[in-house]
């Protein structure tokens, strides 16, 4: 497969209440092996996926939040988080995990993966994609 397409994984579900976030993340990790141009968007309750300090031990469920830290190693380096979605939910950037990647074009400098973007900007980013997958 020589074609390079632009994939956007659109995350609109909170973690734990349903499995869409976890199984969506599994798609992103597999997709990273295909050398496509991919990014993730976190909209609506999707922003809750990135909240730091998740501890699911008492609930009996699997805490899959550490997996987001691995995204940089899979070259998934653009995580667009919607500003308005954070605000409506009483959250700020400081509530989110610090996710980074090493930029090979910049002497492997460590850079933040999360970009806070406005709703209008996200709408425009969507128009640049080839494939939009929703979880």
């Amino acid at each position, binding site marked *: 497969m020589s074609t390079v397409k632009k994939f956007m994984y659109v995350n609109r579900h909170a*973690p*734990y209440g*349903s499995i869409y976030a976890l199984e969506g993340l599994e798609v992103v990790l597999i997709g990273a092996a295909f050398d496509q141009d991919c990014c993730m968007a976190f909209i609506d309750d999707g922003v809750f996926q990135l909240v730091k300090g*998740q501890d699911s031990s008492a*609930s*009996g469920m699997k805490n899959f939040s550490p997996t987001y830290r691995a995204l940089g190693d899979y070259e998934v380096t653009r995580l667009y988080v919607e500003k308005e979605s954070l605000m*409506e939910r009483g959250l700020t950037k400081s509530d989110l995990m610090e996710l980074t990647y090493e930029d090979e074009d910049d002497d492997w400098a460590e850079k933040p993966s999360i970009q806070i973007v406005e709703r209008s900007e996200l709408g425009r980013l969507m128009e640049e994609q080839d494939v939009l997958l929703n979880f």
Partner: protein
Amino acid sequence: MLHTVNKSPFDKNSLKTCLSHSLKDSDILLIEDGVYGAIKDSAMSGDIEKALTDRKIYVLESDIKARGIDSSRLVQGVAIVDYGGFVELAASNDRVQSWL
């Protein structure tokens, strides 16, 4: 009467519907994604504060922990219970309504 809500109020109407149908002195327990409704300074927190004037609102401890919500982030007056407390609320109220 005990009302439970398991949906995020930013995604679904369950909490709003619960608040508009529950009578005063009701117990309202937020579980699963429903616990997001109790975060302070959100688009829902005003509704929660208003409800707290004549109803009790609880969140399930294991569900806020799973989601990384520290107790300091909850609307003041929301109480935290564990599953034992959930069982007690169900037993001490005469009936239960699950707003799914």
